């Protein structure tokens, strides 16, 4: 056990979903050709004026609600001054003194223990352009310049890498479900910086900041490495300097980038080109009226309709299936069977064809009829596998498809009786096992009946008749 206690704070930047940028009306999209989603405002031309995108403020209000923050009713923007080629204005427009949200929290659970990770503040700001460093030059793409960001800053209340990872996982889930951000770390729409310090007592040690870590897993590795590095330094009598580091995932190490500039060096002042902004009750209520159900609300709802926690987590992890399933809840059907189908045959079809469920012809009515047929054993699981492509790709009803695929179940008593007699005669050992109380033998014999009939008999009818024959 180490004699040092780590203290961790996390800053997360998420790109906000909107059609246009924060202060200009050029497109807020990822993947466009270099320097084509730009206009003169994004390029910082003299004489241009920023105007605030209403949707970004609405998203900020939603983020406040989702992260339990107090909403700042009267706010302004500030200039953060610095020299760097990623921002030709030489300042970034951000919110320094009046962040849109304050005093929030995200509840996490680690090893069965619940904890509230406190959010100090969250603010809206513009992204910079993207720089790619090539030897002695950097190549700039301004498509990202002016993309709206929300920065979420926790208090230094995280104790270890597990808590940090749980916080980021929960934050990502919340912002994704609230449609505020895609939160794709691999595309940079969610970026994470961690501040790490260690101390032997209640005072904070000198912190180092680890910038732009590319995955939640790497955040855990980077924090663990940094705690160990700082412990070794202090044990060797060295002094920790306030500095910015990056995580090299190949080497599994944090590496020095630069010694930190202090907040004072940015010379923040109020952005004079944007008047203050006061949010009305009407604006806030209107923004919140479009918030969808959040993961914890979904968990509760799904638990009430009988889904297992495993089914619930799998469903929540698949946004499009989850949204589809939510719609299904207005139909009366067996939801457990529905989720089983969604997570097995339907998911497998979607993965095979690289589609999302809304791209298919699987109407709720059709899915409900499949579930009913499975319940009454008019359809076997094998039948579903045979029909799945047609169910997903055509508007034909289940009855029409059954006829087309010639999978009307055989309900001829005599035919089934003959098959059962044959199976019993050919499997005397299993029959004896069944009679000695081994229930698994019944499943084996039933499997043989289905094999003989190539799955064409009504399974419930065949099962009942097999039991009768065996119990004679």
């Amino acid at each position, binding site marked *: 056990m180490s004699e040092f206690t780590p203290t961790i704070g996390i800053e997360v930047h998420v790109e906000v979903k909107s*059609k*246009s940028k924060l202060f200009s009306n050029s497109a807020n999209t990822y993947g466009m050709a270099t320097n*084509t*989603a730009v*206009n*003169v405002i994004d390029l910082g031309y003299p004489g241009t004026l920023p*105007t605030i*995108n209403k949707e970004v403020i609405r998203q900020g209000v939603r983020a406040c609600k989702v992260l339990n923050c107090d909403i700042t009713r009267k706010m302004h923007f500030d200039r953060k001054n610095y020299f760097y080629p990623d921002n030709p204005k030489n300042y970034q427009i951000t919110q320094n003194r009046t962040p849109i949200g304050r005093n929030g929290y995200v509840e996490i659970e680690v090893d069965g223990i619940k904890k509230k990770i406190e959010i100090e503040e969250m603010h809206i700001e513009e992204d910079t352009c993207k720089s790619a460093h090539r030897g002695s030059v*950097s190549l700039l793409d301004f498509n990202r310049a002016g993309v709206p960001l929300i920065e979420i800053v926790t208090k230094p209340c995280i104790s270890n890498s597990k808590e940090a990872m749980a916080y980021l996982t929960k934050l990502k889930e919340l912002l994704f479900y609230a449609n505020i951000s895609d939160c794709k770390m691999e595309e940079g729409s969610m970026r994470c910086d961690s501040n790490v310090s260690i101390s032997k007592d209640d005072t904070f040690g000198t912190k180092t900041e680890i910038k732009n870590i590319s995955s939640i897993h790497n955040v855990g590795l980077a924090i663990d490495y940094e705690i160990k590095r700082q412990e070794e330094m202090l044990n060797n009598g060295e002094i920790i300097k306030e500095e910015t580091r990056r995580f090299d995932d190949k080497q599994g190490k944090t590496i020095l980038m630069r010694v930190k500039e202090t907040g004072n060096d940015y010379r923040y002042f109020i952005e004079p080109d944007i*008047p203050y902004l006061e949010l009305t009750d009407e604006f806030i209520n209107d923004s919140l009226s479009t918030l969808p159900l959040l993961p914890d609300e979904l968990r509760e709802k799904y638990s009430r309709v009988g889904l297992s926690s495993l089914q619930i987590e799998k469903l929540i992890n698949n946004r499009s299936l989850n949204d589809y399933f939510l719609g299904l809840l207005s139909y009366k059907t067996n939801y457990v069977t529905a989720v089983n189908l969604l997570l097995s045959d339907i998911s497998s079809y979607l993965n095979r064809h690289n589609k999302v469920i809304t791209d298919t012809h699987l109407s709720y009515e059709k899915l409900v009829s499949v579930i009913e047929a499975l319940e009454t054993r008019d359809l076997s699981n094998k039948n579903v596998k045979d029909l799945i492509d047609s169910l997903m790709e055509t508007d034909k009803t289940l009855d029409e498809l059954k006829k087309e695929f010639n999978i009307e179940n055989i309900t001829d008593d005599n035919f089934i009786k003959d098959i059962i007699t044959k199976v019993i005669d050919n499997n005397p050992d299993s029959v004896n096992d069944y009679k000695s109380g081994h229930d698994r033998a019944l499943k084996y014999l039933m499997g043989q009946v289905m094999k003989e009939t190539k799955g064409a008999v009504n399974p419930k009818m065949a099962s009942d008749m097999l039991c009768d024959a065996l119990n004679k």
Partner: protein
Amino acid sequence: MDKLSREEVLHVAHLARISLTEEEIEKFRGELKVLMDDIDKIKNVKDVDDEIMYTPIDFNARLRDDVVGAMLSAKDATLNAPAKNGSFIEVPVMINE
């Protein structure tokens, strides 16, 4: 003191990512001091206690509808750049690793 210290000038030069000659350092010790004195005068203006001084303009910001407008081509976007590389704007690298 009517001049900044040499260290203060070098700190500002570092923030601006520029290097200065000895002659320039000496020159800016005087010139920057004048600027800093003016900034200090502004800093001494007392903030109104509760109301933040948002802006000289006393009206709520107009919010723009979230609609995409006209954008530049890559050719136009890079037209005024001193150097370019394909559709990218090229600048001297500014990181030390």
